[in-house]
């Protein structure tokens, strides 16, 4: 069997469901693949390992990949899962915040290397909030959620379908989506490099197919199986099945395409990417002149 090394973004959470489910069900083996799934220690790190050729495929936010690409990392997205922007500011339900205007006087935590970081100022600006009206504090990724949960901050900036289920039991939160402010930033998909695709095309193709099958299976009413698969694959992580389930449920909405609606899972579209390119250009994350096809290929979706 051909072997592939897949590295995820962070330690286990709901979005890892399809990968673990496929492994657990033996779908990789069925197509003659031997896949090693590595937990990641950060999106940035995974992207760098990909660009350095140390891993074959990564599951990360493809928006962040675009930023990396701008800085010389030769990457390309090979499949898009959560195609709608999921970045959000989350605040205590009890605070009654319903629009960005209500953020005035609030203390929000974020982490420096977060995909959110470059959008903080544009987000505030887009909503007519002046500098200093909202206190944004940068802490370590590991300190972000606990700072919010322990009420040392009013809110936190993260991905809504990741964060809301996470704090549900301790301090349930409302989410203000970044996308609602007109900023489009695509979320999870699989990423690889052109040279890697060149050399392991067939294997990567099989991996992508299996993943599409897995996600379709999960959202075909089998979320519970995905939760079990994660727990089974990561027995020592002591994950909370409620959180995993919550994240998988919450992500379903973000699997649709912002411009094409409920399109088949995995496909990426020029229109989606053009919107993202515009947002990223506006905020200076990427220079002008990029076209959607620089960032993705649907090549591997075909049989």
């Amino acid at each position, binding site marked *: 069997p051909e072997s592939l090394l897949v590295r995820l973004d962070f330690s286990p959470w709901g979005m890892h469901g399809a990968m673990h489910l496929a492994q657990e069900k033996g779908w990789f083996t069925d197509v003659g693949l031997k896949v090693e799934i590595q937990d990641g*220690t950060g999106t940035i790190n995974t992207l760098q390992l990909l660009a350095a050729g140390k891993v074959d495929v990564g599951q990360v936010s493809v928006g962040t990949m675009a930023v990396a690409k701008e800085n010389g990392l030769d990457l390309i997205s090979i499949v898009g899962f959560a195609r709608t922007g999921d970045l959000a500011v989350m605040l205590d339900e009890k605070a009654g915040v319903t629009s960005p205007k209500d953020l005035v006087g609030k203390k929000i935590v974020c982490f420096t290397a977060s995909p959110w970081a470059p959008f903080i100022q544009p987000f505030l600006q887009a909503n007519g909030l002046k500098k200093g009206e909202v206190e944004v504090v940068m802490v370590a990724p590991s300190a972000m959620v606990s700072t919010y949960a322990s009420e040392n901050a009013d809110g936190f900036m993260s991905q809504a379908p990741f964060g809301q289920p996470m704090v549900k039991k301790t301090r349930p939160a409302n989410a203000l989506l970044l996308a609602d402010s007109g900023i489009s930033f695509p979320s999870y998909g699989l990423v690889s490099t052109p040279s890697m695709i060149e050399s392991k095309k067939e294997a990567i193709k099989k991996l992508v197919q299996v993943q599409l099958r897995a996600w379709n299976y999960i959202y075909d009413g089998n979320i519970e199986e995905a939760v079990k698969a994660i727990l089974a694959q990561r027995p020592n*992580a002591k994950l909370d099945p409620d959180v995993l389930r919550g994240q998988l449920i919450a992500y379903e909405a973000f699997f649709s395409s912002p411009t094409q609606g409920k399109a088949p899972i995995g496909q990426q579209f020029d229109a989606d990417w053009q919107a993202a390119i515009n947002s990223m250009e506006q905020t200076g994350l990427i220079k002008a002149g990029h076209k959607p096809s620089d960032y993705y290929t649907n090549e591997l979706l075909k049989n």
Partner: protein
Amino acid sequence: MKQLWSKTEKSRLISITVAILLGIWEIGVRLSGVREFLLPPPSKIFVEFFEAPGYLLMQSLDTLQTTLAGFALAVVLGVIAAIGIVSSRFLDRTLYSLLVAMNAVPKVALAPLFVIWLGTGSAPKIAVAMLIAIFPILIDTVLGLRSTDPEMLDMARVNQASPSKILWKLRFPNALPSLFAGMKVGVSFALVGTIVGEFVAGGSGLGHVILVAQGSFDTPTVFVALALLCFLGVVLFKAIELIEARMLSWHASQRHHFVATASVSGTS
């Protein structure tokens, strides 16, 4: 019986102190109502450990191995570098400053690069552990090697001692107390370096356990891992102290207990 009692005095003292501190912690947490994900009570940490003792011990072992490899490398390279620095004016003026500069770079910032260069196996972890541990060992060994009594060096020189003889038979034994101080600091830092390496490279070890537990909001497990780290740290430190006591029985620093308590009594 009485002798056994007094022989275990040291371990009793430290056990009692730890027990008292844990008690304060337990009561403090319970009374103040600090939530578990911030600071779990010790009882909870204890229980947590026994939910997966095998796994946690395996990860501890993994961390221990990496630490020992990094530390061993740090001792060897640190001592060699120190010898080079005290033996050669050129190295003193170049290598020394370069190492000082290098040490000012936080390994957390370099760890991602190591992982990229060395892959996600144990190599980058060992490298980080080594790089953090080498500096105290180097500095203390340099001090030790330089602190040799000039008249002792004269004595060696009139005996036609070659620089290497002077090094190994005079400077080096003389530097041992300092070297051991450096190793005590170094072994603790090697452990920290391993964890930092594990944070970035991932995969295994207590650093990985901490990362996963933090990611899933599982603070009690974070604390179990930290407690295991403390334990490993103390064990490694005491191991070095033990070797030191055996090798340096001639040195004043090892006879301090006698000195401190040398009270004189009429009969004994």
